[in-house]
């Protein structure tokens, strides 16, 4: 463990702002990527299922 | 011009966008034959001509020209063919004569002028094509049929925007061509007056 306390960990010496903003931005962007991917996946399946059901009903 | 050329299409499968236009289409064209492709709008008439000309590739099937398989490399067919599409391929910034010189550089002045006289374009020889009407521009493109000695003609709606005189001229020229053993494939919505074509119907 490189830090003695939680405050020290959050401060990161004097570089807390930099480290946490870098990690924050990266995490948010990667989460957005996954969310976008899964949303596209669900939307594709939904559209196709609706289309097939509609065609069956006809 | 080859007098013994023939074109055989076998088992052609055309796909456009996401739709099958035709599947398992086969027909052949012998010397001296006019083939007319029939079908509704969007049935794939133009696509079929483009595939034969080598603009598009079929999904499956074979194209034989004079017995040679040209499905993958259409060069030998192209060197013996004229294809005229919806946009006829004459440049607006060139004059009538320059446009024809571009396509047929070896033609002599006297032949060029006599053909242009026949087509009623002789007064427009040095006029830029962009100043001509649609029908006149099409006549310029069609003049290639008089000026070159290619065997296979692939004509997509050749009668579009032509007047009565132009239609008669073109029909006469097509007849001359097939009498000499040429091959013509065309699409048209008009009835042909003097030509009796073999019909190939594309079902959608």
């Amino acid at each position, binding site marked *: 463990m490189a830090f003695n306390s939680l405050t020290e960990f959050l401060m990161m010496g004097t570089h807390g702002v930099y480290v946490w903003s870098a990690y924050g931005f990266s995490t948010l962007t990667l989460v957005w990527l996954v969310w976008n991917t899964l949303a596209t996946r669900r939307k594709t399946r939904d559209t196709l299922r609706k289309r097939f059901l509609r065609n069956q009903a006809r | 011009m080859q007098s013994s050329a023939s074109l055989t299409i076998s088992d052609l499968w055309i796909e456009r966008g996401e739709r099958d236009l035709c599947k398992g289409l086969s027909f052949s064209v012998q010397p001296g034959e006019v083939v007319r492709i029939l079908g509704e709008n969007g049935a794939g008439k133009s696509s079929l001509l483009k595939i034969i*000309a080598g*603009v598009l590739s079929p999904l499956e099937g074979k194209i034989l020209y004079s017995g040679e398989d040209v499905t993958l490399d*259409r*060069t030998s067919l192209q060197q013996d063919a004229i*294809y005229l*599409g919806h946009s*006829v391929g004459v*440049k607006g910034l060139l004059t009538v004569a320059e446009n024809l010189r571009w396509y047929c*550089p070896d033609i002599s002045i006297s032949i060029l002028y006599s053909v242009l006289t026949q087509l009623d374009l002789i007064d427009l020889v040095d006029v830029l094509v962009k100043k001509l009407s649609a029908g006149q521009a099409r006549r310029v493109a069609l003049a290639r049929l008089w000026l070159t000695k290619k065997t296979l003609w692939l004509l997509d709606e050749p009668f579009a925007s032509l007047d009565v005189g132009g239609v008669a001229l073109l029909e006469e020229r097509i007849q001359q061509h097939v009498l000499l053993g040429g091959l013509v494939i065309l699409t048209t919505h008009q009835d042909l007056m003097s030509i009796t074509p073999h019909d190939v119907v594309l079902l959608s």
Partner: protein
Amino acid sequence: MTYSSFFVSEFLVLWRRKQDVFNALLFFIIVVALFPIGINSSPDFLAPAAAGIVWCAAVLAILMAVESIFKEDYLDGSLEQLVVSGLSLPLLILLKVAAQWLVVVLPLLVIIPLLSEMLYLPSSGFWVLIMTLIVGTPSLFFIGVIGAALTVSIKQGAMLVMLLILPFYLPVIIFSTLAVKATQSGLPYSGLLAMLLAMSLLSLVISPFMTAIVVKASVN
């Protein structure tokens, strides 16, 4: 259609559109003039920056000219005729690019002496700048023509071409400006010229084939 009749007709069309070439030239001069007016007009700033300014302006002017190289041919159907002509499409594209290069770059070279005076470029750098333009601009045309083919079927494609192609122009700009800077500080520059030449040759070999693939897919 033969290769020579095609080449001649290309020149004829370019001749009829000489206003476009003239406009490209004016555009080039205006962009160059923006730098002294907009940043700093003292010789201390301009002399070292001259090569970079000229190259940036040249890149933009060339991209403007190349971007629409297939547009008219696509609309009037002559691009389709090239595909079905039975001639080699890559070779036809090569000829087309060559004609365009001659028509755009030669006038550009003619006005460079004037501009380099206006930018206080020292005479040692002047000849190297001319050489970089001669050796480097072909690759700009060959790369740009791929972008032009990619966007020929899009109505408002000019911006997209810029976005697609400008990153690829980076090395050419860097090599050229470094070459001119090298002469100004008395360093050898032949290696950089060789890099430019290599880029032009590489793009000459690759680009016509790539462009032909895209043109074929575009005309259907």
